[in-house]
């Protein structure tokens, strides 16, 4: 479904050039859920943004569903295959667009017909119900907004969802609801996920395999069982697991 090979992403020009991602390679199979973990600045979100076409300074190859992507341009067919959900549901919805406007605009852009029925179905899919259709973002809680953002991503009927920290702005009880929703949607629609998170437990819950990143490089790709059993190859991964287990009084 997704193959990333020798991906480099940089910002700025020499001498101030920052190499955010260095020589990253991984593949994600159809229907798989793949995690990217690492600390802030490790380049995990940058990889997602490069795939989504939000960054044009990259080199290497990105192959989505058998098509090679070129630097910046993405055609409409691409966005029918790939959609993204962002971290902050407060920032990713237009404050003056109702849920109906957000979804119908996306559907129209994707050239869908029968918009009325599709909106109702999308809202049902994400567990909101039709009563939310004409609400504005400020009338929704954080979890409900993230559901709208997920509905918007699903509107194009994509096959690959890029999830950038989809629950880190939410309370743990709401996080559980959203993670369950994402699991259900993956099973129902046969979706492929690439999920970025700093929370190893969330990635452990959601993903089949994951890549650990440090300083722009992928240090290790492993199956989730390796993470659960705490038997990774690299020292850095072990440190990350130990740190995420919480604070032990010195």
């Amino acid at each position: 479904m997704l193959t990333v090979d020798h991906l480099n992403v940089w910002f700025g020009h020499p001498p101030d050039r920052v190499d955010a991602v260095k020589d990253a390679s991984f593949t994600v199979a159809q229907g798989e859920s793949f995690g990217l973990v690492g600390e802030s600045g490790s380049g995990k979100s940058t990889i997602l943004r490069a795939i989504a076409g939000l960054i044009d300074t990259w080199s290497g190859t990105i192959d989505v569903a058998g098509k090679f992507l070129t630097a910046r341009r993405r055609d409409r067919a691409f966005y029918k295959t790939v959609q993204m959900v962002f971290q902050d549901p407060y920032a990713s919805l237009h404050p003056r667009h109702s849920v109906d406007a957000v979804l119908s605009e996306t559907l129209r852009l994707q050239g869908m017909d029968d918009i009325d029925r599709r909106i109702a179905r999308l809202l049902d899919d994400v567990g909101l119900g039709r009563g939310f259709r004409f609400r504005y973002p400020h009338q929704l809680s954080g979890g409900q907004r993230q559901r709208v953002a997920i509905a918007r991503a699903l509107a194009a009927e994509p096959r690959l969802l890029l999830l950038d920290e989809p629950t880190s702005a939410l309370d743990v009880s709401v996080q559980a609801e959203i993670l369950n929703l994402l699991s259900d949607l993956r099973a129902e629609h046969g979706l492929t996920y690439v999920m970025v998170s700093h929370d190893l437990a969330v990635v452990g819950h959601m993903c089949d395999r994951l890549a650990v990143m440090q300083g722009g490089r992928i240090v290790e790709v492993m199956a989730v069982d390796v993470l659960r059993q705490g038997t990774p190859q690299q020292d850095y991964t072990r440190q990350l697991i130990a740190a995420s287990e919480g604070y032990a009084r010195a």
Partner: protein
Amino acid sequence: MTLLSVQNLRVSFPTRHGTFEAVRGISFDLGRERLGVVGESGSGKSMTGRAILGLVRPPGRVTADRLDLEGQSILNLPERRMRKIRGRRISMVMQDPKFSLNPVMTIGDQIVEAYRLHAGGNRAAARQKALDMLAAVQIRDPERVMGAYPHEVSGGMGQRIMIAMMLAPDPEILIADEPTSALDVSVRTEVLNIMDRLVRDRGMGVIFISHDLNLVAQFCDRVLIMYAGRIVETLPAKDLHQARHPYTQGLLNSLPRLDAPVDRLPVLQRQDSWRNGATITESLETEFPGGL
């Protein structure tokens, strides 16, 4: 010994639909211990911290039967008197150092200013104190950091600088409101270790406000769990996993765990009875479990 005694604290805001109570009558005593306050967004945990420091702005209203700092009432003091307490006797570390540090002042100037405001003394002495504090929070090159601006340091360093600044006047109580939520896990441990050591050496009382139950259980001695502006349960931190209130249990269960994989996460079913039900109090064996 009780440093801070809070009885029936309420914070309310007038709205178009009547009065909204963010904190609805909470009571607790703080000794020289680490007290965790846990709850979800909107549970009133941050508002509690702000009310103690007199940081609730009008039209917000703070009332209490008692709000005593070492036997003296600090409830709704005039701003001039509150300023003598704030920073000097009760300090606060907030969530994000990016928003708590002045972006157009060097870090050194900010620490010196904060210190002299509370402790007086000349510039040279204050500067030395600032350097000592930066060294105490394990900043390797304090001289360089003194001359740096906030945007030139990382998040973890910024938070350590905040801790240095807040602890410089030797306050009796430190209120830490989500002090590590904006930090990476590896940096988090370091910042907590530093805070832990300083607090223990100086025998301070700490109110540690967080949404992270496990972190609070590991860092604190005692935990208050807040829901809808009330304390629903208090218990020793080490017994958090034996919590009896369904809300606390629900929060713990909704966390994904690496060691116990599940297909679906249990979802919290909120109940109306939690809003006004009785507080579950674990009978404490010692006054301050976890010891000092």
